[in-house]
């Protein structure tokens, strides 16, 4: 009979240790152990063991006025706008201190040093470039190899291989990639109607014109004539194109970086169905006064990671 007692004990210890440190079942064990031993330090949450693809981990609202001016020279030779501006704004919150230290101790601000590196190493993939900045090329390649072996579609995309990164590396990369991509998406919004149209009802708490009660207004109202073509604020896909009693006919679009935009009270919906791709500036419906509305207008909502934010700071003529 084969013995292999030591070998079996070693692999059992290894497997149990992996469960203890990496899974919710082990997390429950850690909770129990901490309770029994009177340890009152923070224990991991059980759902925290799941690496979520969806939500953006951090978000910094970026009023255009506080961003550094973007001149033609700032477009750089590689890493393009709007990612450059997004990176400038997101730093240093979106980059862990230990990564910043690796960039060297030159006199130039971290964003400038990073942009020089990104220009020199630009390969056309913003999320890949940012990921390399956050965790280095080796870990990224290792995760891509693993995702390829597992048969993931588009393994080079950060979203496809992030779950194959070591936990801390995934957190570091997600912080920078998610922050910059979501910020860049918002910075590059196409206003859905002419930027000359005034905002009749701003974002925030207000007295509702129909119910006369104080209510949170989760978007902006843009009074436009009936039948005005409404433009997609960014490239993305249609999540919903339907109607209800309050929003009337409405369309929700999903864009890169955890951004969603909604267009409500439309007179007509797009011919495209949910799941269809739309490009930035494409007409996605005509304005109207359907649902709970006092007259023709567009109710425009901008959400980051599900949270409604004020779209007004991003009203501007789109980049060429």
């Amino acid at each position, binding site marked *: 009979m084969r013995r292999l007692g030591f070998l079996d004990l070693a692999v059992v210890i290894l497997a149990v240790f992996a469960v203890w440190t990496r899974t919710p*079942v082990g997390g429950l064990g850690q909770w129990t152990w901490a309770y029994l031993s009177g340890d009152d330090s923070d224990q991991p949450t059980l759902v925290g063991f799941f690496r979520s693809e969806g939500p953006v981990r951090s978000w910094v609202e970026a009023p255009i006025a506080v961003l550094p001016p973007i001149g033609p020279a700032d477009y750089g030779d590689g890493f393009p706008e709007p990612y450059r501006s997004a990176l400038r704004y997101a730093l240093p919150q979106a980059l862990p201190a230990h990564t910043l230290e690796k960039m060297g101790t030159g006199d130039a601000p971290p964003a400038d040093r990073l942009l020089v590196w990104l220009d020199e190493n630009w390969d056309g993939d913003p999320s890949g470039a940012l990921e390399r900045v956050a965790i280095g090329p080796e870990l990224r390649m290792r995760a891509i190899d693993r995702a390829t072996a597992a048969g993931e579609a588009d393994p080079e995309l950060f979203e496809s291989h992030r779950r194959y990164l070591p936990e801390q590396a995934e957190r570091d990369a997600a912080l920078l990639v998610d922050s910059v991509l979501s910020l860049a998406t918002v910075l590059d919004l196409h206003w859905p109607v002419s930027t000359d149209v005034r905002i009749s009802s701003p974002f925030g708490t207000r007295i509702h014109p129909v119910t006369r009660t104080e209510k949170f207004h989760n978007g902006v109202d843009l009074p436009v004539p009936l039948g005005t073509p409404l433009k997609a604020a960014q490239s993305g896909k249609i999540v919903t194109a339907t109607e209800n009693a309050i929003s009337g006919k409405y369309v929700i679009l999903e864009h890169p970086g955890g951004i969603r935009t909604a267009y409500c009270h439309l007179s007509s919906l797009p011919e495209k169905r949910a799941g269809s791709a739309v490009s930035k500036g494409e007409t996605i419906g005509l304005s109207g006064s359907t649902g709970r509305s006092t007259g023709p207008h567009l109710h425009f909502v901008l959400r980051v990671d599900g949270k409604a934010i004020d779209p007004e700071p991003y009203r501007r003529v789109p980049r060429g």
Partner: protein
Amino acid sequence: MNIVSKLDASLAITRPLWHWLGQVALVILGTHLAADRLDDDLARFLSNLPIAWSDPQIPFDIGAFSALAIEFGVAIWAIRALARTAEVPITGPRDWASRWSVHNLLGPLFWLPVSLAGSWAIAMAIEDALPHGTAAQVAGWVVGGVVAWRLAGTGMVQLVRGAPVPKHRLDGLLWALPLAVVGAYAAGYGLPVWGWL
């Protein structure tokens, strides 16, 4: 050398007391790999339903807690499945056929991909723990292979050879759906083979 050999033999004798812990741990690891994907797919599916969620985080919470429940459920199933294995092993295919049940059929079909996915999870953890390079990669594959042999393989053999005599053929039907879903996810996303095929 003789002492080491005797110690090894002594440990081997006590194997039934602790070996199942490693086998179950491996299944939990593989299930976690599958559940980590399942919760995202579930959240995405719920988010895209025409439902006005009061908080957009709700689909993600439902996805995460569903995956959590599945993971704990599978851990209990794995312990129970090993404990239920018959003391009198099957003698051949005909004997197994006479013990046919949903549990005896689905158990090994679930165990194989999930425990192999668990072995890969350990291989990746070993590789991540070592300095980047070929040595780390080789060490990961070697340890993953040994784990697959000594835990995934032995567990699989135990489930098949020790198929319990069922009270009725539909024994295990309640577990069929979660096991099939987790097993399919582990096979689809937890095995490092699809890129080579």
